[in-house]
């Protein structure tokens, strides 16, 4: 029982079967790379482009680090359907975003609007950079003011200490 192979293939045909399996796996790879939302929503390329932009800017709230274009969660399917329907009925991009925000809040947008509650979010990168620059400048200035002489003396002392 223990020694029986999981795949019950006669030895002679095993290599051929392996080659075939590898080939089949290779054929399946492009499937993995294909988009979740593979069906083309609109015949009109302009509408299709807007649809793709929008679905790539809206967050799937169940699978939070994916857009609704990336996700096949039921909620993402619902939101894609809603986006498609609204586009088909002539809604503007901002109307669709407003519709989503009314229901799910700014969090649904990958690019949230700049306002009081999101100010910190928008400024954080700049603030962090500024903080980093300040710390770097302080460290460099501190070293400079410590003076080369002082350092040289310290080093000389250290060297003397080592010798004795």
């Amino acid at each position, binding site marked *: 029982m223990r020694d029986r192979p999981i795949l019950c293939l006669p030895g002679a045909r095993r290599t051929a079967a392996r080659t075939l399996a590898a080939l089949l796996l290779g054929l399946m790879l492009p499937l993995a790379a294909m988009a979740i939302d593979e069906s083309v929503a609109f015949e009109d390329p302009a509408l299709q482009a807007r649809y793709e932009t929008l679905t790539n800017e809206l967050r799937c*709230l*169940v699978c*939070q680090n994916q857009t609704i274009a990336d996700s096949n969660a*039921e*909620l993402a399917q*619902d*939101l894609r359907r*809603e986006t498609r329907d609204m586009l088909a009925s002539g809604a503007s991009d901002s109307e669709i975003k407003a519709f989503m*925000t*009314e*229901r*799910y*809040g700014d*969090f649904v947008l990958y690019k949230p609007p700049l306002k009081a509650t999101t100010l910190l979010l928008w400024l954080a990168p700049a603030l962090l950079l500024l*903080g980093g620059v300040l*710390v770097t400048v*302080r460290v460099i200035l501190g070293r400079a003011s410590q003076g080369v002489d002082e350092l040289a003396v310290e080093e000389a002392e250290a060297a003397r200490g080592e010798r004795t």
Partner: protein
Amino acid sequence: MRYLVPAGFFLLLVVFFVGLRLNPSEVPSPLIGKPAPAFELPTLSDPEANFATGDMLGRPALLNVWATWCAGCRVEHEMLMQLSRAGDVPIFGLNYRDERGPALEWLQALGDPYKTVGYDPEGVASLDWGVYGAPETFLLAPDGTVVYKHLGPLDPGSWEEEFVPRIREMIASGGSPGR
């Protein structure tokens, strides 16, 4: 100046301490303080009968979003049964992306805490309510304003902390308790 860097680190520590303990899957609902979105759905038990937002008005009420595929709903079901037995607040259900047969079996097997359940297999009404998972429980004011939204299973702790004070406040300010 020499305390600036330690102070900065301390501040960062506080920010992380608070921020990293927040649950990112709890997205605050923009519906709070706004009128409940209108819907009209067939009820779960009778496809001919309707259940609409207006049916929940007149007293503080709960709208519980559930489905048989949702493990958290199974967890909170006993809590809903207890609330229903206590009878202080009517509980309405919104059956979210589910199938009628299993949903009815669920209520038969585990008990039915709901006054009415709306059947929303396509998640159409649920989308208007900003539902993105289950269970979710909305607290509605007598005039239909969305007062609060709880994400995840209800438990006695969250009930006492999040719902009871708000319901008391509503009753004190004129809404009659639902009996």
